[in-house]
């Protein structure tokens, strides 16, 4: 008589996404849909040059435009101690420039007016006089002895270097290299990309002087962190700040940081005592908000003749733009780069990292990735590819020799992570079978005889998803746990709130499935709410694939605590002692008498109408969950391509993705996440980058230059699954939101390289545009993607 879990939309049900009801009808409610009485509109004037001293800003003509209410400059912000704000990496960032502009697109002034047309008209009337300074667009230029100092605003910042950082075992690694038969090297650039959510960033600040309350509607993936940040920056009491993050049109990491526009709109509302709306345009989003990647990856690998990896060295040189604003756990200067090689048995490893300022937009956000894990895994799989070639060993065989075996878990990686579960070799086998691995080499040879270039690339990885635990992970000192609050109403319906914030992941659907799984309440009877700091429990938000590993676990724990209370109520209703009560999905019954039972709905009613003596009424719980470890999903991707030797154009012939993300709450949503991630991976590998010319002009400031793939050119993906439950997660789930973006790019690149490396080329930097592939084919030389690009 237990309820049928799939029928009630529980775990494992490919339940349709409930949020899609409004999204596909165009009824989503985004920040820009919010209209408040008396609302003003703000437009930001951005620098059109990349590095220049500000000699003067004349706003008088802007003030004259009818309908203009306020014009703000850096000087006016400075008078209120708001010209600079802290970043998520303990640096400072200009809110409105006072002394210099340091990248093209930097915020210089803001106009607040009756409507957005007027604000824009008036912005065009502000006259800024600049004195040009030399421009730096890559780390090579940044470290040159005669480089101009970008951050002359800071004390103790004599050069453009931000940090030197290292982790791992240097002497052990040196020793491994001494013992190596073969040493393989690789030198890569992971280009600057941009998460470019379809909805740009924006906010509506509404300060009410009579109550002292500041309400801000904001495009943020982490409303509670923003509340804390606003409390610190604007020096307002935290209980008087309410951040509401309504429907988000995508985030992908772009909506984690605090942006100048948010801060300016808040001050503007305080000054005008009117709500102030700021909605960034797409160019503003692309040129000024958090980018991803932009890091040079250099590696060396020590190998034994038989293919065993003995050790690994990695050096990263990262380009952070003008302000060090990476969103990442505090302890780690270059995110979780040291998760590289976590799926391989590598005895010794050492990572060194150097970060630089350049005249480019700040960011370094985790674009659909758990803090630089994308770069770490791209490096890993490009390194593996090169090493297998240098050994003259088969790509799959080389990986299988070195992958951590099933019986080695829990496995401590050379950099100290603890991976806990997986069936790596099984995933390899599933993928090899599906792509037709065994016959490929023959096929490739046959094709080459007829002048056709085929290639096959592999990418495998495990990645650390779901930060915390709180011992190791914090952002600005706030520990990385998460929370859920479940309230079951009298009629057995429920509301669930969490500290996460969905942006397309489908929390409204899957959280209800977890509750359904734990309580047997139909998922349709549970409403999920997130994003309002006045109502949701405190949480760190959604990014880095952390929602299911952390908030999702909190949901399960809250439901279990509710069930524990319901059990007491059931005992009372059934007039037996609690020990005699058994649970099956949706129902308690008396041990030995299956017919005598009460449903969870009966217990809910009793919690408000017939509770046992001495019991607190109500049926609800707030749970905070601090995970014991990260979760470690595994991916094995296989890609087959054909390259046109006359043009360098390449097509994907087949792509096989095997993902093991543990228990799948909603298989359809998991597949959607993988499909979307692979599409983004394909874009990065094939067409997408934000680059700069030598004057620091951003090339990629609009969607004609920064390319988002469409359904037309995106190849089909064949998906497979292997399930190894996470041993420590309450429902055995692992993160999946980012696996495909992280593991995907190397599969495409390795495939193209495999098709052309007979010319002697070892590397072509992403994106593998036809011209780059063609150049490699012609010259047999590596093709570097380091800016500046030459634009005649």
């Amino acid at each position, binding site marked *: 008589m237990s309820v049928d879990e799939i029928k009630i939309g529980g775990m494992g049900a490919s339940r349709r996404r409930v949020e899609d009801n409004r999204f596909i009808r165009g009824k989503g409610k985004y920040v820009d849909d919010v209209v408040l009485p008396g609302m003003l509109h703000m*437009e930001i004037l951005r620098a059109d040059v990349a590095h220049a001293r500000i000699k003067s800003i004349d706003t008088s003509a802007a003030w004259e435009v009818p309908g203009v209410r306020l014009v703000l400059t850096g000087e006016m912000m400075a008078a209120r101690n708001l010209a600079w704000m802290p970043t998520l990496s303990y640096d400072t960032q200009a809110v409105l420039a006072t002394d210099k502009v340091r990248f093209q697109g930097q915020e210089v002034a803001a106009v607040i007016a009756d409507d*957005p*047309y007027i604000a*824009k*008209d008036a912005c*065009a009337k502000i006259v800024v006089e600049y004195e040009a300074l030399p421009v730096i667009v890559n780390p090579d230029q940044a470290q040159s002895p005669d480089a101009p100092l970008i951050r002359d605003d800071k004390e103790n910042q004599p050069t453009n270097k931000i940090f030197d950082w290292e982790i791992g075992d240097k002497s052990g690694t040196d020793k491994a290299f001494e013992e190596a038969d073969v040493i393989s090297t690789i030198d890569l650039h992971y280009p600057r990309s941009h998460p470019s959510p379809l909805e740009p960033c924006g906010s509506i600040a509404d300060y009410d002087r009579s109550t002292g309350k500041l309400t801000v509607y904001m495009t943020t993936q982490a409303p509670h962190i923003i509340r804390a940040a606003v409390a610190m920056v604007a020096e307002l009491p935290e209980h008087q700040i309410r951040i509401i993050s309504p429907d988000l049109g995508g985030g992908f990491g772009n909506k984690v940081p605090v942006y100048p526009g948010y801060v300016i709109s808040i001050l503007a509302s305080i000054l005008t005592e009117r709500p102030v709306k700021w909605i960034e*345009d797409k160019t503003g989003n692309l040129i000024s908000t958090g980018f991803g990647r932009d890091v040079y990856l250099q590696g060396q690998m020590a190998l034994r003749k038989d293919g065993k990896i003995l050790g690994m060295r990695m050096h990263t040189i990262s380009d952070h733009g003008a302000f060090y604003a990476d969103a990442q756990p505090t302890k780690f200067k270059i995110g979780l780069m040291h998760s590289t090689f976590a799926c391989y048995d590598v005895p010794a490893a050492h990572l060194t990292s150097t970060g630089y300022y350049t005249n480019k937009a700040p960011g370094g956000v985790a674009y659909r990735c758990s803090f630089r894990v994308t770069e770490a895994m791209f490096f890993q799989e490009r390194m593996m590819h090169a090493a297998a070639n240098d050994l003259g060993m088969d790509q799959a065989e080389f990986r299988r020799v070195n992958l951590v075996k099933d019986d080695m878990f829990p496995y401590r990686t050379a950099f100290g992570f603890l991976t806990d579960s997986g069936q790596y070799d099984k995933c390899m086998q599933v993928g090899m079978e599906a792509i037709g691995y065994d016959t490929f080499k023959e096929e490739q040879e046959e094709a080459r005889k007829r002048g056709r270039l085929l290639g096959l690339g592999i990418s495998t990885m495990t990645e650390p998803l779901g930060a915390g635990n709180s011992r190791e992970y914090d952002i600005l000192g706030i520990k990385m746990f998460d929370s859920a609050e479940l309230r079951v109403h009298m009629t057995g319906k429920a509301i669930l709130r969490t500290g996460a914030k969905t942006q397309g992941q489908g929390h409204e659907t899957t959280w209800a499935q977890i509750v359904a799984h734990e309580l047997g309440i139909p998922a349709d009877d549970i409403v999920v709410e997130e994003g309002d700091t006045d109502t949701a429990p405190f949480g760190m938000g959604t990014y880095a694939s952390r929602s299911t590993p952390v908030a999702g676990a909190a949901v399960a724990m809250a439901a279990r605590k509710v069930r524990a209370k319901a059990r007491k109520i059931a005992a009372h209703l059934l007039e037996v002692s609690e020990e005699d009560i058994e649970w099956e999905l949706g129902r308690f019954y008396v041990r030995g008498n299956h017919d005598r039972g009460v449903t969870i709905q009966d217990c809910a009613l009793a919690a408000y109408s017939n509770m046992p003596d001495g019991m607190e009424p109500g049926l609800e719980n707030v749970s905070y969950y601090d995970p014991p470890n990260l979760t470690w999903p595994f991916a094995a991707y296989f890609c087959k391509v054909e390259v046109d030797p*006359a*043009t360098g*154009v390449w097509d994907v012939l087949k792509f096989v993705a095997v993902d093991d993300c543990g228990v799948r709450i909603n298989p359809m949503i998991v597949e959607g996440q993988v499909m979307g991630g692979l599409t983004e991976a394909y874009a990065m590998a094939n*067409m997408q980058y934000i*680059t700069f010319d030598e004057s620091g002009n951003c*090339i990629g400031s609009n969607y*004609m*230059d920064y*390319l988002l*793939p*469409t359904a*037309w*050119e995106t190849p089909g993906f064949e998906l497979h699954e292997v399930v190894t439950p996470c041993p420590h997660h309450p429902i055995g789930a692992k993160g999946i939101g980012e696996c495909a973006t992280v593991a995907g790019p190397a599969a495409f690149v390795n495939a193209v390289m495999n098709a052309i490396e007979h010319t002697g080329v070892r590397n072509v930097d992403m994106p593998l*545009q*036809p*011209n780059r592939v*063609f*150049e490699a084919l012609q010259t047999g030389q590596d093709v570097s993607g380091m800016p500046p*690009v*030459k*634009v*005649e």
Partner: protein
Amino acid sequence: MYPSRFAYEAPTSLAEAIAILDRSGGEAKILAGGQSLVPMLKLRFAAPGTLVDINNIPGLGEHWLDKDGTLHIGALVRHEDLEYSTVIADSHPTLAAAAELVADPIVRTRGTFVGSVCHADPQGDWAATMVASGGQIIAQGPNGRRAIDVREFVLGPFTNALAYNEIAVEAVIPPATGTAKGGYLKLERRVGDFATASVAVNLDMHGDTVHRAGCALAGVGGRTIDANDAINGALKGKTLTPENIEAAADAVAAMAEPRSDHRGSADYKRHIVKTFVSRILSNIAHSEQKAA
């Protein structure tokens, strides 16, 4: 999007539209499909005082072949109309080949052929097909109609030969005297991308001999590149042998004026032009052989 302030007019006849343009003294702009003009308004690269929306003017939405095979394309014929056209495949294969490569399917539902030629984007696909095919634009103004050879119409980047009070009402493309053959190849980074390099080739074949050859290039210069003489010089009166194809491809590639940028070096783009010319011609030669 927040463009500069403008007035909006939506006349229902050509005469009315021309009168508005005439009165505006050059401050007005015609709005056809809006797929180039609206982005320019958004970026405030264009700030016309008045938009004259011609979409309500009847009689401009048709394309047809007249008795001698001349193709007429009205000012409101959308890219998509040509993509799904049942009349141009045999008579005007160059246009037919380009139709599905212009922009993306969404843009193709709104953008107009004539608007694209008027816009004179050096990367525009239609202007290249027009130049290769010897087309004309029919302009109508207060003093009536005139026909302008497309090579005198597309003057430079984003400049055409229309007077401020003229409307391009139609494009006219002549038929082949023998069999029409042609092709269009475009290197794009993504569907909906403008051309990194593209090639339009149009042949008038008498048997297996080339009676007239036409060619134009997009994306590889500051304007649509007219390579008619280059290809005609190499192929007129000849058959499509591998040697002749090679010579034609070289001659056309020499006409390109590409610049290096993030899409590729000048050399690469020139190489693509050459590759595309020989691919189109080889395909035609190959299909001729099959037909024979």
